[in-house]
């Protein structure tokens, strides 16, 4: 077994541990921090069921972003939807027999790679062309787009230009999952692709990619509009409640 196989194997073990542990820690922090006051952005649903529907629309349709900026919505939605299909398609490299969902998007998934790239390029153009966006962008904001573009680009190159030994790649990942390492093909494009993916996984819990769990914990979106009907009291506020006075 080559040194590179070992390096990539360890890299992916590290990446998955950092990703999962980092996200668990963040989600735990969000879940444990109370929202002491009712602050849904209204008009808001008055029931829990309504809140679930509102979050569903935010996650799937980007409802608020649609109200806010049609270009961001279009490029953002194309990127996210493309990425989702591409990810589902990639399940074929991790499952044996191949999961139904992965098989289902086998053909369309390839083109979704282009859709994803189109969305990313649109977002990059908007970030670099609009003066307001340039002002609010840090280097990390451009780098994040560059990273995703490089991942998508290297993936598409492997599909259409310099094909990699995908059977061996699958054997490598199945081996990783079974703790029975198999050699990774010697292919620079593949190494770049995998290196960048691992980097993305490691960066995830320390970056703005926290918008993924964040949305579900956002009090302006996940609270029902029912403050008159239900008394809402956070633990630290309940302590104040016991001693509340006019103080005069």
């Amino acid at each position: 077994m080559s040194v590179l196989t070992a390096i990539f194997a360890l890299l992916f073990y590290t990446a998955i541990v950092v990703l999962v542990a980092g996200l668990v820690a963040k989600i735990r922090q969000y879940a444990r921090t109370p929202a002491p006051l009712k602050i849904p952005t209204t008009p808001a649903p008055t029931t829990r069921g309504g809140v679930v529907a509102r979050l569903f629309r935010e996650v799937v349709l980007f409802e608020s972003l649609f109200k806010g900026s049609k270009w961001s919505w279009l490029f953002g939605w194309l990127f996210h939807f493309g990425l989702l299909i591409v990810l589902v398609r990639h399940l074929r490299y991790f499952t044996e027999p191949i999961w139904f969902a992965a098989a289902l998007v086998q053909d369309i998934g390839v083109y979704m790679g282009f859709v994803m790239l189109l969305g990313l390029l649109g977002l990059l153009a908007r970030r670099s062309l609009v003066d307001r966006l340039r002002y609010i962008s840090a280097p990390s904001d451009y780098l994040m787009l560059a990273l995703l573009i490089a991942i998508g680009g290297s993936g598409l190159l492997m599909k259409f230009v310099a094909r990699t030994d995908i059977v061996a790649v699958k054997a490598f990942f199945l081996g990783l999952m079974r703790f029975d390492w198999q050699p990774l093909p010697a292919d620079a494009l593949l190494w770049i692709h995998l290196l960048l993916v691992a980097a993305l996984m490691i960066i995830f819990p320390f970056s703005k990619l926290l918008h993924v769990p964040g949305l579900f914990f956002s009090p302006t979106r996940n609270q029902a509009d029912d403050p008159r009907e239900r008394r809402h009291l956070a633990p630290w506020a309940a302590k104040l409640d016991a001693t509340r006075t006019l103080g005069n």
Partner: protein
Amino acid sequence: MAKAKQEFATPVLADIPIIPAIAPDAMAHSKPFKAKPEHQEPLGFPGELVGNWKEKALDKMGEMLGKYRSLPVFLDACVKCGACTDKCHYYLGTADPKNMPVARQDLLRKVYRRHFTVAGKYFPKLVGAVELSEEVIEDWYKYYHQCSECRRCSVYCPYGIDTAEITMAGREILAHIGVGQKYSNEIIAKVHKIGNNLGLPKPALADTLEGLEEEVQEDIEVDVKYPLDQEGAEVLLVTPSADFFAEPHVDGLIGYGKVFHQAGISWTLSSFASEAANFGIFIGNYENMQKVAMRIRQAALDLGVKRIVVGECGHAWRVAYSFWNTLIGPFDFLDPNYPVPQHVCEFTYDLINRGALKFDKEANDDKVVTFHDSCNVSRASRMGDMPGGQFMIPRALLKAACNHYVDMAPDTIHEHTFCCGGGGGLLTDDLVELRVKGAVPRMEALKKVIDEDGVTHMAAICAICKSQFTKVLPYYGMGMDMIVSVHQLVGDALVMGAEH
């Protein structure tokens, strides 16, 4: 110490609203007067800048990150998509990029990243993390007092990030290191001491109400009462103290009295809780907000009322509707058949639906009326049973009382409404340039319906909006008396008599 207001040019209103190109530091000179020790200390804040301010500020920030989930979520989640960048009326009116909601958040976020995140600790330049410094504090003070906490940005944010929460946190941290804002803190201290923002003691209040009774008697020859501290009344009315004397607010109060009179429901004001406004929300301080609100619970208990109705006031309605149950509930001592609290518009609307009120709309035929949705009512509360009732009910009242009603452009009303420019604790003369410029989007929308539909009056249900428009309308060549209370129009058209 902040300088007095400087000269500035009133913006020219555009026919088609434009998004201005950024003009860095365009409002870097704008900041309100700082609170003196006598404004700080009654609220439990240090009188002046503390010696170890940096440590104290970071401690406070850490504490708040653990107490308010909105903070870590909002500070982490922003992807800088830019959807909010053209939504703030202060950005649209001043072009200062730090008035873009995301940039305003970044003033706090960059410090959060530096001191509380791994990425900011090790790669500050990469992620735009910045050490807390005197300049940062100065920027916080300036730009957290150029946000009216109106939540318009939160409507468009894909993660619901609400800059109002960040502004409140920024102000809370500042107050705790001794850098408070004079206007809000002085007012809160007055409420703690006397019971209202204006510092009106009971005799002055009684005198004012007596004067109102005489005025109404003279005007319509009906004996409408404006009772004070009447034990055993059915309803306690809590209204912003501006309603007692300011124009056009007082005409709204006159209108409430007519509605109560005509409905035959006994009611009272309280001299102890003579203020619906609660500036505790503006400075983001839970304890002060609770303490201010507690007066109302106390008054309701002491007077033995069965219901609490809240007068026309935007942020007060947010505190009452969204926070009272948390802060001063439960309200198990009140009549469960009515919502607690109830907005005066809900109260009147309910009476109309029950056929208890009759209107002569012709009384308002000299007016073409539009309605300014107040930010806190629109985006932080509700009226009635249905989401969006806060838009429908005030309009239903106006349409019941007026023959001529038109709405402003759809992207400037309902949840998209623009702040008047004076909300969130900024309604002070030391910020007049900001207030005038921040009114631009609303002025443009208003001008359009004046030109196209002949609108003569704009009704509002917020004391701050009413005061702000009275001040800024003349800057744009419009009459200050264009702004009216909803219950003024209701009262003017209400048929008074014994038949109900």
